[in-house]
């Protein structure tokens, strides 16, 4: 579904991604882990062009995202993204946050968008918060709304950029449970995370990135029990 070939990204002289090639299958759940500064988030942000790759190609369902002629907005609609700091629209209610893009971008009717939003809110366990403003929500609730907002666009792929890093510990679980539910429903997902236990349980594949390179790509069992590289072994030693 997603094909990445020789992807590089440099910020000025700082080479952040040094040639990453991989492919993600439909319904695959990928957990990206690695030390900070290894390029995980940058890799994720390249996948919906929040960062423009310096070189290399990204193809999604045969459409080449990195081709300047591609209709980027259209491809982006198929890729949802959930951010570390949620980025809910503070001046809109929860319901408006969720229905905004379906109505304004997809042209959905207000009624349909609202019905969908209520359904999604029920799914993330926040049916009672539809009319609240984001400032009234806890971090965990905000992140669940953000997930619902992404889902409202009915994406084929969901990208999570450290979705629980900004949360108080007691709220991590509620968010991870929602993501786990999505994984079970067959959504294709790439998740940058520091939650090793979650990665181990929920992911189909672990990507270990270090210094801008995809160092290991393995099943959770293999990766966590028998890391192939010395760097991965050292990393796991530190975090587990």
């Amino acid at each position, binding site marked *: 579904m997603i094909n990445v070939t020789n992807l590089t990204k440099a910020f000025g002289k700082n080479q952040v991604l040094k040639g990453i090639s991989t492919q993600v299958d439909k319904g695959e759940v990928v957990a990206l882990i690695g030390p900070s500064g290894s390029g995980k988030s940058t890799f994720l942000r390249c996948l919906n062009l929040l960062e423009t790759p310096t070189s290399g190609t990204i193809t999604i369902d045969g459409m080449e995202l990195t081709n300047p002629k591609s209709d980027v907005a259209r491809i982006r609609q198929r890729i949802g993204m959930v951010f570390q700091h949620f980025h809910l*629209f503070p001046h809109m209610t929860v319901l408006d946050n969720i229905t905004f893009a379906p109505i304004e971008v997809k042209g959905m009717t207000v009624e349909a968008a609202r019905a969908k939003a209520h359904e999604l809110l029920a799914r993330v366990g926040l049916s009672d918060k539809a009319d609240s403003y984001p400032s009234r929500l806890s971090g965990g609730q905000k992140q669940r709304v953000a997930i619902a907002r992404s889902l409202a666009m009915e994406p084929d792929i969901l990208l999570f950029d450290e979705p629980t890093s900004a949360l108080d510990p007691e709220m991590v679980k509620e968010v991870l449970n929602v993501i786990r539910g999505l994984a079970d429903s067959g959504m294709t997902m790439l998740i940058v995370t520091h939650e090793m236990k979650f990665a181990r349980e929920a992911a189909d594949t672990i990507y270990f990135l270090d210094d801008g390179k995809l160092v290991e790509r393995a099943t959770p069992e293999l990766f966590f029990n028998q890391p192939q590289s010395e760097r991965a072994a050292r990393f796991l030693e530190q975090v587990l």
Partner: protein
Amino acid sequence: MKRNRIRIVHVSLIIFAFLLLSLGSATPGTPANMAYAASEPTVKKLVMGTSPDYPPYESVDAKSNGDIVGMDVDIAKAIASELGYQLEISGMDFNGLIAALQTNRVDFVMSGMSVTEERKKSVTFSDSYYTARNTIISQKKKAYDTVEQLAGKLVGTQLGSIQDQYAATIEGAKLKKLNKIADLIQELNSGRIDAAIVEDAVAVEMIRANPDLTMSFVPATEEDNGYAIAFPKQTKLVDDFNRALNQMKENGELQNIIDKWFEEKDAGENERSAFLNIDFRVLDGYVPYILKGIYVTLLFTLVSALLGLIWGTILSLFKISGIRPLQWFATAYTSIFRGTPLLVQLTLIYYATPQLFDFDIPALLAAGLAFGLNSAAYLSETIRGGIMAVDKGQREAAIALGVPYRKMMVRIIFPQALRHILPALVNEFVALLKESSLVSVIGVTELMRRADFVRASTFRSFEALLLVAAIYYVLVLILTSLARMLERRLRRSD
């Protein structure tokens, strides 16, 4: 509810367009009064420029319909009727009269304007129609009767008046030039100047309105040039006018008009309270005239604020667009409009537009344009700051959802930026409201100019000023409380 907001944007655009139109159609300056309303359209029209703050020559009939009346007006009407023209009167600031002649906004100027060598360089004068006597005005308790006594004293005159030139010849006197007769009165009353030189007709009125002052006529001299009608250099009218003027001199019609306006007025009603020398009774009858200025001031402020907001927003978008030519344009624009005086911009727009675009821009429209364009330069920086202050993540979230740029700016970024910049916006609008008094220069009869007319008509300095100050203050209070309501609404999501 979503669609409603879009409709609100449309509606406000329509309102803005409507306001612009109403600015265009609102009567420029003082309502021009037609001398011969019923005449057929084949009659050619002559526009007379005048500064109606100099009774009895010309003043605004503020107690009735706000028309411009006075001796000059009557003489002009008589000449126009003699020559078969239809007369239209356009009121403006005295300092703008010559410019109005040179840009053909008016056909001739009659405004108690004296013939000077300086003015002769730019305009053509008719024969003089009246020669005024120079008069010394001073306080009763420290009166000066002769020019000789003024040696070593501080003497006030009205800038650009013939008395201004005359006073320069007084030996040993120090001069202080002021813009308005009402200013002279105030300086005299407060003792900042020892005496003032004005012309006889003005002096009589001054004494009548200010019982603490006294006057003394200066003997006439040969060099007095008197008042004349000014024309553009290339005019063909001057000979016709001179002929009509001569005829009026011979048949006594001119003297009749002069007598009508200069006749002794009863010096009764002189019992004014001495406390602070303020007596609001002098405004009796003038208040409705001043109050009507609120509409003009508000209309003007609203249009310039909206124009400034819309254009400023576009400029701020240019600045953050990342497109070089647009950025360059917006930066240069801001630099120029912030770097030159607003008064200069206003004057240029008003006087240059007819020559550049062959469009006779109404004063109020020119004023709204100048203030809007100027305000946009300041607001573009404010708005840019507000946009930059919105968390970068908001933009990313919108992009990730596939929201197009325009929609993202309008629906996601601006509403949040607005919250940050609202206090600064209110400051700007309050400033616009008060600075609107500047536009009286090109003859827009807003609050301040109306106050000036009334000051001129009453020969009193403080009362009208205090009244408009109070009006401005109330307007600003209303504006700020509206802004507070808006702010509360924007903050409901906190």
